């Protein structure tokens, strides 16, 4: 039945409000017009026989019955679709596990990839190797999804137009000829830190073929401070490896070492091992953290002191003074004596300092003092000197041989050469310098205005960008070549403490991407490689025991080469060099105020240096 709506009855008192002129005039024609739903002339289903609602009910029932009828009762035809050629060793529905590694900023993480039907679906740490302790971090887990990222680069681009592998190979050949004529002057590489022995080997061969080339390593998350300090104090080609599993007391100065985002899972596992108390005789380690923000390490700390990052040098000076007094260590004393005392140290909790220093001294040889990688060189040197005074070097802080090619330039040096127009062919491997290069790299020689990376890159006539995404850097490069994911490539890597890992592909490059070593190989004029030949060449160079095929199979199966030794240097601290360098670079600033605040740029736990924000 059609409902006839009554307007709300007029209020007995109060003002009556009209909503239209018709309502205001309130003529009988208006009232009739209101009641009639459709204008005059429209055909209507009249009230008594059939309403719209009944009509809808009937149609709905008919549709439902039609659905129940013959067509939908039949079993839908579905298909079994096998491979044409199956992936090797796969059994449908069962998993296959392969060892590989994920290259990271400070080292690589050994992984086990679960594959099904020839496709990797899960990554876990490789329990056979202590560097991952059988675990992964967020970035390793997410890297699997990177492989299937719909936004990843799928095509070769040459000057804005689609191209292909054949044309790129021809281009590299031509470029090689041009560069060879003048010893590689004008050839430059801007790469990220991946710690790949094969890439280093090919780089060394390129440097022999093109002696004047420039090789620059840049990563927004890396700081050179530690390398500089280590080189001065302990000699070149070493890296200090903290052994948290041997430490009873750890003091971290703005060092977020429990955050594994740099790839150092072994530290976190070593530390937590010492927290585990299984019997009454077990002792826990103790963590002191001095930091300027909330970090994972700070959350784990037993004692945490809040301190602005720019005041860490001052704090370290005071702490070093206390340790020097307690240990009476000559090198530490002489280093401190070269430094000007910081001003205004009243803000630091004296008790905290005393207790921390006493704890460290009482646990001489089983303690660690860590300075964060982004703290200045002087703080690093003080930390090393403190560790030396506490007799930690060689025990809880190990001096490991870690060869570095000394020919590596910084991005500022590369920018300088680009600014002067000396670079003719630039290869950018990964990274995204338009996005993350330092803002002011050089000065325009004529206009004396600051230039950033995009302007500098435009001065280079041939830029080849090997990239995972077609981003801002690719847009201004002459060539964009799709980068193969590490799950699609052959390669090798070193862990943060120097162990040699294998990287093997789980699947052929989904979009015909190339790896870095393939391009370096092409630049050397060698024939195209289809498989692991380049890595096998490096592996052969490590002199594996027994016959090569067996050793190689074991290398791939385990994910690491046990026969490659980890060499440590004997303990010797060059106090004199450290002192003079510290004196040159020492600077303390007063505490930040609201008029002169401190701004600290940190790595994001979620987005790394911004690269995970695609």
């Amino acid at each position: 039945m059609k409902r006839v709506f009554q307007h709300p009855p007029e209020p007995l008192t109060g003002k009556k409000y009209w909503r239209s002129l018709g309502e205001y005039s309130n003529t009988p024609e208006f009232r009739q017009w209101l009641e009639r739903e459709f204008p005059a002339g429209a055909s209507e289903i009249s009230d008594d026989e059939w309403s719209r609602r009944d009509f809808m009910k009937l149609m709905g029932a008919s549709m439902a019955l039609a659905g129940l009828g013959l067509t939908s009762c039949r079993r839908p035809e579905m298909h079994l679709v096998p491979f044409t050629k199956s992936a090797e060793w796969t059994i449908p529905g069962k998993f296959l596990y392969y060892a590989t590694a994920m290259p990271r900023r400070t080292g690589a993480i050994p992984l086990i990839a679960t594959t099904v039907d020839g496709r990797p679906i899960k990554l876990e740490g490789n329990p056979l190797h202590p560097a991952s302790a059988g675990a992964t971090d967020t970035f390793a887990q997410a890297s699997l999804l990177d492989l299937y990222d719909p936004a990843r680069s799928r095509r070769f681009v040459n000057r804005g137009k689609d191209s292909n592998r054949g044309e790129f190979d021809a281009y590299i050949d031509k470029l090689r000829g041009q560069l060879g004529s003048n010893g590689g002057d004008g050839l430059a590489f801007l790469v990220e830190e991946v710690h790949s022995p094969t890439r280093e080997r090919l780089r060394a061969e390129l440097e022999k073929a093109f002696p004047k080339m420039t090789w620059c390593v840049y990563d927004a998350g890396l700081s050179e401070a530690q390398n500089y300090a280590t080189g001065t104090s302990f000699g070149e080609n070493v890296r200090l490896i903290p052994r948290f599993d041997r430490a009873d007391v750890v003091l971290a100065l703005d060092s977020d070492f429990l955050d594994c985002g740099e790839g150092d899972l072994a530290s976190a596992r070593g530390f937590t091992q010492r927290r585990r108390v299984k019997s009454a005789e077990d002792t826990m380690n103790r963590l002191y953290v001095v930091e300027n923000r909330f970090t994972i390490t700070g959350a784990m700390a037993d004692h945490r002191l809040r301190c602005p990052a720019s005041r860490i040098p001052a704090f370290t000076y005071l702490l070093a003074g206390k340790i020097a007094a307690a240990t009476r260590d000559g090198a530490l004393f002489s280093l401190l004596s070269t430094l000007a005392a910081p001003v205004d140290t009243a803000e630091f909790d004296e008790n905290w300092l005393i207790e921390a220093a006493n704890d460290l001294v009482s646990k001489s040889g089983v303690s660690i003092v860590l300075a964060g990688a982004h703290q200045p060189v002087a703080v690093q040197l003080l930390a090393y000197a403190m560790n030396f005074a506490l007799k930690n070097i060689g025990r809880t802080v190990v001096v490991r041989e870690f060869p570095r090619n000394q020919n590596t330039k910084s991005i500022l040096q590369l920018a300088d050469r680009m600014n002067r127009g000396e670079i003719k062919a630039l290869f950018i491997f990964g990274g995204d310098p338009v996005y993350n290069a330092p803002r002011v790299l050089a000065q325009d020689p004529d206009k004396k205005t600051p230039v950033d990376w995009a302007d500098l890159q435009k001065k280079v006539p041939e830029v080849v960008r090997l990239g995972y995404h077609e981003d801002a850097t690719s847009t201004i490069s002459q060539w964009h070549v799709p980068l193969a994911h590490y799950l699609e490539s052959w390669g090798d890597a070193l862990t943060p403490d120097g162990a040699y890992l294998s990287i093997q592909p789980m699947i052929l490059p989904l979009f015909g991407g190339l790896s870095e070593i393939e391009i370096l190989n092409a630049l050397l004029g060698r024939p195209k490689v289809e498989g692991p030949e380049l890595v096998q060449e490096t592996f052969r160079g490590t002199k594996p025991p027994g016959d090569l095929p067996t050793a190689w199979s074991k290398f791939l199966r385990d994910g690491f080469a046990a026969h490659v030794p980890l060499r440590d240097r004997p303990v010797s601290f060059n106090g004199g060099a450290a002192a003079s360098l510290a004196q040159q670079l020492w600077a303390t600033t007063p505490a930040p105020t609201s008029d002169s605040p401190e701004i600290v740029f940190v790595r994001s736990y979620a987005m790394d240096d911004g690269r995970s924000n695609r």
Partner: protein
Amino acid sequence: MAIAGILIACGLTAATWYYVTPKYTRVGYQPIQPVPFPHDIHVTQLGMDCRYCHSFVEVAAQSNVPNTQTCMNCHSQVQKDNPKLEPVRESWKTGKPIEWVWLHRTVDYVFYNHAAHVNRGISCFSCHGPVNHMATVSIAEPHSMAWCLECHRHPENFLRPDDQIFNLDWKPDDVKPAEFVAKYGQPKSVTEDWTKKKHLTQQEIGQTLKGRWNIAPSTNCQTCHR
């Protein structure tokens, strides 16, 4: 009035019971496949074992249909110009797989494991019928839950010696009692000496094997419905 109502209800029930159950709706389904692959020629005439193509039936839950490479192992030379094999050659050339029509399908909430059955005395024949004599595969058994429970409740009606799993023509009469007892013994509860018998029934064979192999198929819901 009431009697007519009751009769109609009974009639509908009977009709549903007969026509709308898997035994009627599924058995006999014989769809046309993209390639008219004849099991009878390949298995009975040529003597190929089931496992040459359905290679993972003993190790995996799914028994696989063969990939094109398996077909081309022979058909790159045998019958290499036969027009019936054109889809196979086409698939091999282009890399696009052959889309076989799926016959023996359980619903998504049932999880069946081939390896668990094939390794424990249940032959292909028990569930798929005489495939080795089918020119086109058709469904021979209803694959309903009641039908699964028939075996799960009484496995001795279906068990066979483990070297006969892939012999789809095996009958209990083929078994020589003396050899059978020599290999598998006889149930402890039976006093009669079976070596003297002329034939063994399926139940006798099944009972022996069930005891010997400790076959106790679960009728717990979790087993198949996880």
